[in-house]
């Protein structure tokens, strides 16, 4: 009887450890691993290093705020980083989530980025990002599942007064 009780405790410990590891992988407080492919040519305009760094910094910040917006269904969190079509679509999704009582936790763990196009007049930058992330779906605060995803995103960013904002964010089949 004593042995069985000890066994149960050990099993509980193992299960707790497993739950903890899942929770940690979902909470993802760590910064994502970011890899940027060398940009030899991005089309008609030379991409200066400073511009490239600013685009990548603002794009990654957009993912952070997107994550917060989807976790709490806060449309306002999109304002700083998204504009145009991307903002409208994401905001529509958040409103739909709110209506259905859903929330989603996106935790990006890795970005493999490649800047592919810088328009001649300097008003748009296009990049491809192979993102690795976990998405956790909550229905009325009850976790339904966690999926590990690797997806290829195409993003178009445009400059605003102080930062680059995401105008298009769209996953495509790999």
């Amino acid at each position, binding site marked *: 009887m004593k*042995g069985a009780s*000890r*066994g149960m405790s*050990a*099993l509980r410990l*193992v*299960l707790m450890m*497993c739950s903890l590891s899942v929770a940690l992988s979902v909470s993802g407080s760590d910064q994502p691993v970011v890899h940027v492919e060398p940009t030899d040519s991005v*089309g*008609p305009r030379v991409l200066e290093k400073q511009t490239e760094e600013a685009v990548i910094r603002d794009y990654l910040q957009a993912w952070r705020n*997107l994550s917060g917006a*989807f976790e709490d269904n806060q449309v306002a969190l999109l304002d700083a980083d998204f504009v145009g*079509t991307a903002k*409208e*679509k*994401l905001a*529509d*999704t958040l409103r*739909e*989530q709110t209506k*259905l009582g*859903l929330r*989603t936790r*996106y935790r990006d763990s890795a970005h493999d980025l490649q800047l*592919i*196009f810088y*328009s*001649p*007049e300097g*008003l*748009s930058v*296009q990049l*491809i990002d192979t993102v690795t992330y976990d*998405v956790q*779906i909550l*229905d009325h605060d009850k976790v*339904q*599942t966690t*999926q590990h*995803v690797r*997806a290829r995103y*195409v993003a*178009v960013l445009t400059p605003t007064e102080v930062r680059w904002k995401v105008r*298009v*964010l*769209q*996953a*495509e*089949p790999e």
Partner: protein
Amino acid sequence: MKSRLTSLFLGALILVASSQLSVAQTGGLHMPKTVEAGAAFSIQSAGSGHATLYIVGLGQVLRREVQLGETTSFAPGELHSAGHYAVLLVSDSSTENGTFDVTAARQPSSLSFLARPSRVPVDLHDGISGVVYVFDTFQNLVLEPAQASFQLSGVAGAPQARTVLTRNGVAWMKMDSAVKEGAAQFVARVGNASDARVITQVPGDPCSLRMNARPSGQALALETDPVRDCRGNAVPDGTIVTFTETYDGDEATVDVPIKRGIARTEMPAHKGATISVATGVVMGNEIHWGGGQ
């Protein structure tokens, strides 16, 4: 004791792994791998009883109450935002996961056309650029390659036309501005979608500058010939022309805007004075008053 704990630990790991495997398997959940945006599609489940079906992506979320073992149909237009979607079927006894992608509709519907600059000097090589992003009717970026044609038609001469293939939903090109000033229509077209911009082609810098002088009472009346660019277009009114008179070590300067293509002014008529004219970086002729031109 140690071996017992080890076997328990291994057992638990196998239990967790096997349970994750059953969740990861789509099992009785059948769905297409890709769906075109706005197209009808269906998801087939297995088993019996009641369940909730979730389709979750950044572009849209859907939730349906379904009967297991039945086909759940989605009407045209119901799922229209391109992207990667998680599919989740939750019943009292099981949870099944799946994923699929929604791709943009093949038919372009609208263009985002950036044409720069809105005003450009005439006869400038690669002076006009056009960039076009291609979207479907649901505002998804059409990533499939498509022929994009650009046409620049001005007030004179044959239109310039280029055709390029879109890559990742975008196409771009550069064109020369026309030799004649005036508004040009710049049109981008992909499939049945088109968009137009107006590019104003303005005269370039003055090409040559010539003035003449005649006495006007005690003064000297100075007047340029019509000021034109190298292609014969009249330089816009308001362009400043500078007349400079040098006499006995002193220098007097008058800035005059061009009016109706000509700049005019009066300066003191000192015999032996030298008068020069310039606009921008272009120097005109010199007149030596009293000593002949």
